[in-house]
């Protein structure tokens, strides 16, 4: 499975992207977040510490997800971006659109109690 989701004690929904986030599987990520929203989850971390690469469709999916989460009054943070992955966000200026933490733990911790 390319995505594994866990809900932490503080009620934050953490999704880890294993492998690639690309045109062939981004829909699965969108569906996973939508289902969680439908189950009243509102705090999301998408973690990339085990991700190889992301293509423009993957970046686009993150943009859509971020919008959806905001529209439903939720919050989204990204975490675990290595130098290579981070460069994709910087090139596309998406680093200005997303809240980004170093690690999933920090991302979880940064949600207001």
């Amino acid at each position, binding site marked *: 499975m390319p995505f594994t989701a866990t809900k932490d004690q503080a009620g934050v929904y953490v999704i880890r992207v294993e492998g*690639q986030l*690309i045109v062939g599987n981004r829909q699965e990520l969108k569906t996973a977040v939508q289902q969680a929203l439908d189950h009243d989850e509102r705090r999301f971390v998408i973690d990339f510490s085990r991700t190889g690469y992301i293509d*423009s469709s993957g970046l*686009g999916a993150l*943009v859509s997800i971020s*919008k959806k989460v905001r529209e439903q009054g939720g919050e989204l943070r990204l975490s675990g971006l290595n130098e*290579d992955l981070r460069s994709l966000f910087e*090139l596309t200026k998406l680093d200005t659109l997303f809240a980004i933490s170093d690690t999933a733990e920090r991302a979880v911790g940064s949600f207001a109690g």
Partner: protein
Amino acid sequence: MTAPLPASLRLCVRRRRVPGPTGAMVQVSLRVPSDVACIEEVVDLLMRHCCDGGWLCRRSRFNLRVATAEALANAIVAGNQEDRSKWVQVQAEVCGDEIRIEVTDQGPGFDPAAVPTPILPDDLDRPNGRGLFLIKNLVDDVRFNAQGNSICMTLRRR
């Protein structure tokens, strides 16, 4: 992600110890079905056969992976419209300090000059339009044929 059923595929690799007639040490050609589920495997095959060992630095390998995945996605989705009767042809060559990857689809082509830059503040929350921009920023040179159904990306070793 691997496709549940292995997709049909034709791969030819020609590797030489000394440069061949075109100067190439490695030539790879791939015929890929118009199925986005193939992209990851094709990227892996290209990287394995073209960038084996420490030939390219980590960042260059990453950039090439992303650029190749992009070009394949464009060829399969925008070019061939995911029509399974159409193929995507990939040619890769390692010549001296350069690697060239050419991706050709069977679609009508397009005018790359007409594609807008996707990083204006107002456009940041658009879900698409970043593919060509990424490619141009990740490799050293990008060219299209006149029809626009074939892209050739060159990355130089540094």
